[in-house]
């Protein structure tokens, strides 16, 4: 299982990478593996507020829907429009297929580093 070092992880299987004051958020390799082939993503709009620990959208596979949670509180500055037509990018390259970018960050959840996250995934599998 893939856990790059340069990002941090939430317990609900999102990754977040800081680019200056902007948080870039996506789904982890573990998440996309569990979800299976993704067929659609429901994303917020630029300008919407997101809250740390709360769902900001969802991803659909053929037979299931899963909420995606924000690791930070802030304002959505950009959404990855390419995912609307090609949700499979999340399955193919989860750490490149970011979902949203968030600015004006005022809060964040308790986040894990790569080793802690890998251990967290192991414990979930058991």
């Amino acid at each position: 299982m893939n856990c790059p070092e340069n990002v941090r992880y939430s317990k609900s299987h999102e990754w977040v990478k800081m680019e200056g004051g902007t948080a870039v958020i996506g789904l982890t390799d573990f998440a996309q593996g569990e979800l299976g082939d993704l067929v659609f993503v429901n994303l917020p709009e630029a300008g919407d507020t997101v809250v740390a620990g709360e769902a900001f959208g969802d991803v659909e596979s053929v037979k299931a829907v899963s909420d995606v949670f924000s690791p930070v509180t802030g304002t959505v500055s950009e959404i990855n429009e390419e995912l609307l037509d090609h949700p499979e990018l999340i399955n193919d390259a989860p750490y490149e297929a970011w979902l949203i970018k968030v600015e004006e960050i005022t809060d964040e959840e308790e986040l894990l580093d790569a080793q802690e996250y890998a251990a967290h995934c192991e414990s979930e599998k058991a």
Partner: protein
Amino acid sequence: MGSYIPNTKEEQLEMLREIGMQSFDDLYTDIPEAMRLAKPLDLPEGLSELEVSAALEELADKNRRYRHIFRGAGSYHHYIPAIVKQVTSKEEFVTAYTPYQAEISQGILQSVFEYQTMICELTGMDVSNASVYDGATAAAEAAAMCRDRKRGAVCVSATTDPKVLSVIKTYCFGSGAPLLILPEKDGRTDMAAWGAMDTKEIACLYVQTPNYYGILEDGDEIAAAVHESGAKLILGCNPIALGILKTPAEYGADVAVGEGQPLGLPMSFGGPYLGFMAASKDMMRKLPGRIVGQTVDADGRRGYVLTLQAREQHIRREKASSNICSNEALCAMTAAVYLSAMGARGLEKAATACMANAHYLLEGLLKAGFVRKYQGEFFHEFVTVCPGNAYELSEKLGEQGYLSGLPLNEREMLWCCTEMNTKQEIDTLLALVGEVIS
């Protein structure tokens, strides 16, 4: 007593014993004694098939079935080609369930795919679902589709069929959506009133054309005004009329809905009917209900499946936009067979006759002293002010075997003609009307 249980009493007892029970009572030990029925239900004894058949025939005979029908108002008497009944009686179609196991349900799935295509063709829209219960619930579901976090109010034209309005109102009672009525003026939607409203929280406007009074609304003006305000337009339409009239897509509607009963379904005292819903491409994922999609199988063969299921209740549960599960599948197939049999030329012919006959009837009624209420182009329905009492007129015509237009009140009547009315029939009706009012 009729029973559809193949096993005889002896076989049943053997089966009970095989599973270690002595009687049927042993199967129900989980039910508290106090809840088990102590005495038999207060129902009549079961009957043989012959007796049930006779009883239902007796009930049917207590109804008066008219041959000469001039009433519409949401339920229409159209010609049903013989092949429609034949096809839709095929037991495979009648007794199949929802096509969840696609591999053995390609017949159903393909027929729904064909139906969806035909609804898109009729309405001009990009996508259609596999049906909802009727035109009224289609309107209510369409309103729900248009609502979002920023715009939650639903606006409905006062020229809407009161039954449709009632259902939208009831659904808004459920969702909590504020409901606004856009006034009418001279029998059409008053767009000046729209201009005077504060529309920034209105999600959609529902207008039907032809409207309840039969009048064709100015769809271009309505669409322009609604879109200018940032709201969506839901057009209720008549599927036969779409054989010759401008489509909701041509008007720029965001959602097109309507009652599909005219497409091969008998009037049947109100049901089962067929609600069709079609939308623009970007509203596809907001459509409620089942949608069939084309795909390929493991060997590359073309096939069909239920798709976009992640919208639906069995996956989204409380987050689903609609709870709809069972729909009107066999009625949708009925519509598809009807449209296949009629073709574009047949539908044009039916629509042309509806319109021509209705105008011919109006002309005759005007000569007889009726006054038309509301001016303007119409399809196959119109309202007249009657020389006398509308209810009495209706009763007298009924005695002669003619189902008149619907009395809207003491003086006004909503008339309807279809391709089923012959010129001779209309002439006879006019003659009878002449007699009654003199």
